[in-house]
């Protein structure tokens, strides 16, 4: 699958036109990772926005201290066609989570600096992409809330 097609199948980029995707493809690259590899760690500069083509990636949060639940907690698992590393589009552009591959993983990595420049230059593309991104983030938040409630009800 070409990078352009991979972007097109992702919920964040799917409404962009071919010309816009061609532009984004120019500053994107395919990256492969082994199972267990770390794609990025929290606190580091978020230079890329990722779209998962194959494999599975766990997003983990570092706990301040060693606790009953351990040092790290997985807060999400990214599957095919999902975007991750959203911090690349949100100031201060630092990753807030750590991304660890659960399986051999292939991603399309979009250069965040160039993507931000494109969004600044072309407000239409910027509006469309951020609108989609907010939609995806909102649905993830909704799912997290349901899980939170479900688990809390069980503890009572």
């Amino acid at each position, binding site marked *: 699958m070409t990078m352009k097609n991979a972007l097109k199948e992702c919920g964040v980029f799917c409404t962009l036109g071919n010309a816009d995707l061609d532009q984004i493809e120019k500053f994107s690259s395919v990256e492969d990772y082994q199972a*267990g590899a770390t794609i990025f760690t929290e606190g580091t500069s978020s230079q890329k926005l990722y779209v998962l083509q194959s494999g599975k990636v766990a997003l983990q949060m570092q706990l301040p201290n060693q606790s009953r639940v351990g040092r790290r907690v997985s*807060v999400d698992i990214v599957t095919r066609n999902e975007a991750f590393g959203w911090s690349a589009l949100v100031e201060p552009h630092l990753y807030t989570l750590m991304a660890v591959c659960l*399986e051999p993983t292939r991603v399309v990595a979009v250069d965040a600096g160039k993507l931000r420049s494109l969004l600044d230059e072309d407000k239409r593309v910027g509006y469309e992409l951020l609108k989609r991104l907010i939609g995806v983030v909102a649905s993830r938040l909704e799912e997290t809330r349901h899980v939170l409630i479900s*688990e809390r009800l069980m503890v009572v």
Partner: protein
Amino acid sequence: MSDSTLRVVVASERPEFRQMLAGVVEREPGAVVVGQAENSLRALALARQLRPQVALVDPELPYIAGHESQRLSRMSGLDTAVNISHELPSVAAVLVSNPQPAEAAATGPGDPQLWVYGETAGARMPVRLHDLMAGTPAARRLVFGGIKLGEAVVTRATLAEVADKLVLCGGLGIMGGLGLMVTLVLAGAGIALAAGGAATLLLGFAGKLVASARARAARD
């Protein structure tokens, strides 16, 4: 249980996957399942309590106990494997991906084979549980792998199914044969009865003829 027995804890919310993991252990001589956990908290508790050498963990393990239909965060497998390997460095923690539905459908319900990812990207290496204990504890801390459903055992399963069908067919054949034999015996008795009846009937008609002849002679 001897000292050389390899002690294994398996962890998955899904009973069928736990069974599959336990099957991997049971088929390996000298390995035994000492505990089964359905969530992360239980898996950690069992690892601390039972001190296994190997922990086989489903990546989609929920953190706490719940029903399969409930919307739990089923993503604690990695955390569990990491925590076990950090807290108990002698344990080889294996994160075991479930076979994909398409893969399972293609191979059928065969004997599962454990594999781990090799050095080459994406390479899958079949592995024995005892092999996981090789090397230093640091080297075996956390391993990523999966389950493959073996084709050889699928053949064995097919043979077993065929044998079952043969037994069923044989039983039905015996039952049918016995029924036929009873029918034939009864048919023989029926023929004899009918023959006797016919002879009796003829005798009766003959007697009637003789009686009417005598009556006619007496009138004349």
